[in-house]
């Protein structure tokens, strides 16, 4: 399936993409404040320090917000309509964006939501990260609903700017 190509090669992003290649979700963690950052930043917004570790995170989280796309805005999503873009809050606290898939791996929003869904049907739903191969040697984190509908505990240690 077509996907927009993410920009690779930004400042300090090599450990992230290397993790994706190896099948490990890694995020920046500030050595001083201990918070996890997403997106990748040169300065911790919490304490203004610049020393980080790259740490493997659980890949578990919950949907904090989402939108259903029924119109094509980016031709590289042609064939994927209707699809869901979401903000996922990891149990570690950072918020990441991505598409939502059903527990069976389906990306079609109508299949995921069913007929006449509530507007907030997915808010708080538990998700697990998986890597989607988008070709050209790139894998990106995506989010699959869990069969267990219990939400994981909200994260404490994240920072998303």
């Amino acid at each position, binding site marked *: 399936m077509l996907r927009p190509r993410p920009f690779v090669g930004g*400042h300090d992003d090599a450990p992230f993409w290397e993790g994706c290649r190896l099948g490990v979700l890694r995020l920046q963690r500030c050595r001083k404040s201990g918070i996890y950052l997403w997106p990748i*930043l*040169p*300065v911790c917004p919490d304490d*203004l320090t*610049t020393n980080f570790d790259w740490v493997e995170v659980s890949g578990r989280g919950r949907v904090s917000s989402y939108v259903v796309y029924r119109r094509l805005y980016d031709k590289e999503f042609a064939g994927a309509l209707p699809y869901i873009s979401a903000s996922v809050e990891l149990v570690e606290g950072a918020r990441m964006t991505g598409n939502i898939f059903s527990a069976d791996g389906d990306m079609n929003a109508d299949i995921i939501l069913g007929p006449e869904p509530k507007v907030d049907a997915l808010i708080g739903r538990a998700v697990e990260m998986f890597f989607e191969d988008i070709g050209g040697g790139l894998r990106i984190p995506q989010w699959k609903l869990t069969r267990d509908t219990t939400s994981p505990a909200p994260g404490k240690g994240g920072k998303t*700017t």
Partner: protein
Amino acid sequence: MKPTLTLATALLTLASFASGAASQSLEKLAITPQLVAAAEKEGEVTLQYSSPLVTMQGLIGEFTKAYPKIRVNLDRKAGASGANALMQEMAAGVARVDVFQGSDNAPNKALIDKGAFVAIEPSNVADLDKVALSLAPYLYFPDLNRTVIAYNPKFVTAEEAAKLKDWRGILDPVFKGRISLVEPTFGVTMAPLLYVMNTKHLGAEFLGKLKAQAPNIYVNTAQARQALISGQKPISWGAQWEAVILTQIGRGAPVRFVYPEPAVEWGGTAWGVLKTAPHPNAARLLLAWKLSREGGQAEQGAYSNMRSNITGLPDGRVVFGKVKAETWYAEPKGTWRPDLQDWIANGTRYQEIWAKSVR
């Protein structure tokens, strides 16, 4: 205090400029026990805003201290994107937002023309500087912004910083590869662009030369501040404003600033109540508070450090008081205010010129 008749006349004149809803009757706005009771009964208000997240959280924290029974839902959509999203919601018949705060005046004016806002005259209108009334009675600018050129003193010498006071100083070869710029889709990036486009010795030719300085171009000002503080790009040009840099200084960030001469200053963000506000009383209370002296004082807190457009309000910005005592600080000798009609009429064209010249 000036006579009310004069004020009403002034507002009606401004209302005719802010076309599209000029026939609306002007609603008087004051914080009364009745308004507070009605707002508390509603219990919540949704503010769509443009200011930085931490700034707005701090400001609303002060509002919540004053009115703890009213929950404020914050929805951040910065610059033109906020106005455009609201326009789409209006077209779809969605009434979700109560109070709007926007920074880019061309889309702000488009919302006025669509009849988005209630025509309001706050009871303290005589205390507001004329820049606060530029889009009255639909939108008010409670605060005054000033463009600064921010630099990291670990990577930029005092001698180099002095060059930045001249608008063309950034073209000095010494700055090549050390600069970041931000897309002019926010008020804070549009205002300096308006100065550039209205100044004979700058204009598109200057923008072309700026490109030759190999700047990094970011899509938002927070990215530029990250690059500034980390030293990756130790000069943030045409994208930062006094208040936000003072806040960073207050947090201990290695940042200083100069005002280019003349310093560009303008009404920072426009606030208004939507006609379709689901919480109309809480919306009015929030706007009335924001335009009051209490709201102005709250905006001077360490999370915001904003200049107020309320005349006679003492400058209580603690961080600014400390900065003024620093040897590197220098007041601007002159200031320049953009013509709002030029912003509204030509803003999109200037953005296109910027994109063609700089990207």
